[in-house]
């Protein structure tokens, strides 16, 4: 007798509906799985064997053929254990009568028949919803993560025994839908109130975070670039539900999602080491996993000492910076992962770090400085909207008892500015100023005649490349949003011009 069950496989973040069929008939004792299974899937027959035997007391010693359709797609991982076990059980036991035509089974089995959680459950549930499937039976540890999606019934099961009871008619309460709440803001170790001085850099940080602008900080070692960067999580705007879903899906596939949390509600802050390989950065490898740029999706990618990264690694960032997506082409498949992050980078002004310092002398030659700066290519620099210098803080400033503004106050302004942007771009397919394209610039960043002249003059006097224009306009738009101004005024434009530094550009 042949029985069928549905399951879902993942390629990147894309789902594919898998139909598992089992045929059990009298004959010699053998158990085959066909339909392009990989090693983990092939091994699942051992797990399924033991799990069924240890749950029901016996295993049908006959000929068993399991087919995974469509047969031309390679199946990976252990998540098909449960649907395979279900089809075998239903093929031999006619008491398991529940209609499972619109149910997805997913989960890894232990030898004693318990269900183990799998990674990537959120994109699977999202795909099930898209396919119009009504419910999904999954390991109870995955339930919280899955319950973020409304409209699909989540049936959490702890063991194969529960599954058998469920199939024979016993009801299991569906896991309740989890309302998404943005992360609670507790006390931050790195809070702007602990950063003394640096008024200019703090303001630039606020503007960058508000509009999602990429930013580079140039400054001598010890000037506080890293400290400022570490404060970003404390002022970053709250995530929307959709953003949280996207980011959670990536972490789910990557396999580092905290199962008890269920959802990532804080924007990720990813700090790759400068020895990271290209594959680690953009994704790929044998399993075509997402890379660090995708893990930073909807969050921040922080590159400390940017010129220390290999040039190739840095150039890899160009596509995601431009399109918000990274396409990983490997032998088996071409997979797209979202990678829309805010790039924050820091660098020294020269190899020794003291160029331009008011307190120490620079020992580098002209050529050394040129070479150092040249590691960051023009096209990459063009994608960084805000370029600022961070100066050394003097001892006196450090011990001053001045009360600095807290991250909480800054975050409130940032959230408001983001809200303005989201409302403005409703239906445009973008969410923040940094994502604006040429057509949005024309629509939302018109300048008065005088300001247009002013901008032109700034190009002549300060020697910007023509490509800097759109960057300046975007930043000016964000500054105007922080000021609750509908139009970009002269003061906004002037401030925005100040955030482009021809010193690094040259």
């Amino acid at each position, binding site marked *: 007798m042949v029985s069928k069950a549905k399951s879902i496989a993942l390629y990147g973040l894309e789902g594919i509906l898998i139909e598992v069929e089992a045929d059990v008939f009298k004959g010699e004792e053998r158990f085959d799985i066909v339909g392009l299974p990989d090693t983990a899937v092939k091994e699942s027959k051992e797990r399924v064997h033991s799990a069924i035997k240890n749950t029901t007391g016996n295993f049908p010693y006959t000929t068993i053929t399991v087919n995974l359709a469509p047969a031309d797609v390679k199946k990976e991982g252990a998540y098909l254990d449960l649907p395979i076990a279900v089809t075998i059980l239903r093929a031999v036991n006619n008491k398991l009568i529940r209609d499972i035509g619109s149910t997805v089974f997913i989960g890894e089995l232990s030898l004693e028949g318990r269900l183990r959680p799998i990674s990537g459950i959120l994109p699977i549930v999202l795909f099930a919803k898209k396919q119009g499937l009504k419910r999904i039976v999954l390991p109870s540890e995955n339930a919280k993560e899955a319950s973020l999606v409304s409209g699909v019934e989540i049936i959490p099961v702890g063991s194969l025994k529960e599954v058998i009871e469920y199939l024979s008619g016993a009801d299991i309460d569906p896991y309740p839908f989890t309302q998404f709440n943005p992360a609670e803001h507790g006390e931050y170790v790195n809070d702007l109130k602990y950063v003394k*001085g*640096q*008024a*200019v*850099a*703090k*303001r630039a940080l606020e503007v960058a975070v508000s509009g999602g602008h990429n930013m580079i900080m*140039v*400054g*001598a070692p010890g000037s506080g670039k890293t400290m400022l960067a570490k404060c970003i999580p404390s002022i970053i705007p709250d995530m929307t539900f959709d953003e949280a879903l996207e980011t959670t899906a990536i972490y789910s596939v990557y396999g580092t999602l905290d199962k008890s949390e269920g959802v990532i509600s804080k924007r990720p802050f990813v700090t790759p080491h400068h020895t990271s390989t290209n594959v680690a950065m953009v994704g790929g490898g044998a399993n075509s996993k997402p890379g660090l740029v995708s893990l930073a999706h909807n969050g921040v990618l922080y590159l400390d000492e940017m010129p220390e990264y290999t040039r190739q690694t840095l150039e890899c960032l160009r596509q995601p910076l431009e399109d918000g997506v990274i396409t990983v082409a490997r032998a088996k498949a071409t997979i797209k992962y979202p990678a829309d992050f805010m790039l924050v980078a820091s660098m020294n*002004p020269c190899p020794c770090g003291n*160029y*331009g*310092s*008011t307190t120490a*002398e*620079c020992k580098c*030659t*002209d*050529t050394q*400085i*040129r070479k150092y700066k040249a590691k960051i290519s023009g096209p990459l620099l063009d994608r960084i909207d805000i370029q*600022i*210098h*961070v*100066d050394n803080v003097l001892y006196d400033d450090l011990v001053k008892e001045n009360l600095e503004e807290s991250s909480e106050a800054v975050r409130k302004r940032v959230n408001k500015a983001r809200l303005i942007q989201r409302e403005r771009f409703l239906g445009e397919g973008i969410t923040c100023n940094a994502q604006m394209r040429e057509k949005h610039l024309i629509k939302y960043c018109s300048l008065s005649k005088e300001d247009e002249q*002013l901008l032109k*003059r*700034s190009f002549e*006097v*300060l020697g910007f490349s023509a490509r800097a224009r759109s960057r300046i306009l975007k930043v000016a738009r964000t*500054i105007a949003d922080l000021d609750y101004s509908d139009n970009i005024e002269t*003061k906004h434009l*002037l*401030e925005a*011009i*100040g*955030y482009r*530094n*021809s*010193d690094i550009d040259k």
Partner: protein
Amino acid sequence: MSYDRDELAVILLDSMMGLEYKNKIAILDRLDSPKQLFSQDDYVTEVIYSVLPESKANTVASAFNENYLNHVVTKLESRNVRVITKYSENYPESLQNVDCPPLCLYCNGNVSLLEEQKIFAVVGTRKCPSDVLRLTKDFASQLSEAGLCLVTGSAGGVDSAVIEGALPSEKIISVVAGGINNVYPAYNKQLIERVEKFGLVISEQPPDFEVKPWLFPVRNRIIAGLAEGVLVAAGKRDSGARHTATFALEGGKDVFAFPYSIDVSYGELPNSLIKSGAHLCDDVNDILETMRVDVKKVASVKLEGDEKTVFSLIKDGVILADDLVERSGLKSYEVATVLTKLELGGFIARAAGNTYKAIK
């Protein structure tokens, strides 16, 4: 382009890179005129063999024939190089007075610039902050607009700033240390090509001569020699610009220098020059008056409100943006706005880092 026989003889002699300057001069000094070299009579041969060791003398003695001459001249013409020799009519008189006047000037560009009435040199270090470069560029453009022809080197930093400032008025001479085909540093090649097009590039060495460190001070004597006055924009105590200033002082020319506070390394040379008698220069008119060029009066712009507050703070020596925020009592975004306004108005320039300097 045509040369007389004297010029051709000197060009040919100078094209032999194995010869030292003093040998070439020694040969030429003992002849009535350079064209005698072509005659190959006994006296000339005797002169050549008495000055040079035999191996070199053999080469030189056999080189003065029409074939080799054609080869050398065609090569120069293919590279658009016009040679002005010590025996040419248009050889700059100012160079006759320098130590070891160059035998040949290999020129590419507008040669008539060498006949300009007033040539003025602006020199300085390769490495100094962008506010100094901005100031230098402003000075260069004003000086060249006022009618001075500027002469400088070919390096980055101050040299490039001078070239960029003076290019629009097309009154710029760049003296390169090596041959014209070997511009140093390589990253400045495009800039120097623009000078070839709109100004003049000259070198004392044949086009393919390689750049050597010792050529730079040697080159500097030409810069100092051509100019009636020299402005030293910036440099450390041991900067190469020191040679230019020394040559100029020895030649009795006016030397100007920007003043600096005592703790900036790139201000060491200008300050020490001022101490030893150079003109302190903080206004273009200082130079224009001394060089007897019409002084132009610029209407001064009055600043008001926040701009005035911030500008006077910068003039008082508050240069860090963060300090400006604190001292002015303004919000950091207000200061950012004012700073850009002042920068666009040409009142201040951004130095390295987040520091600002007044340049007006």
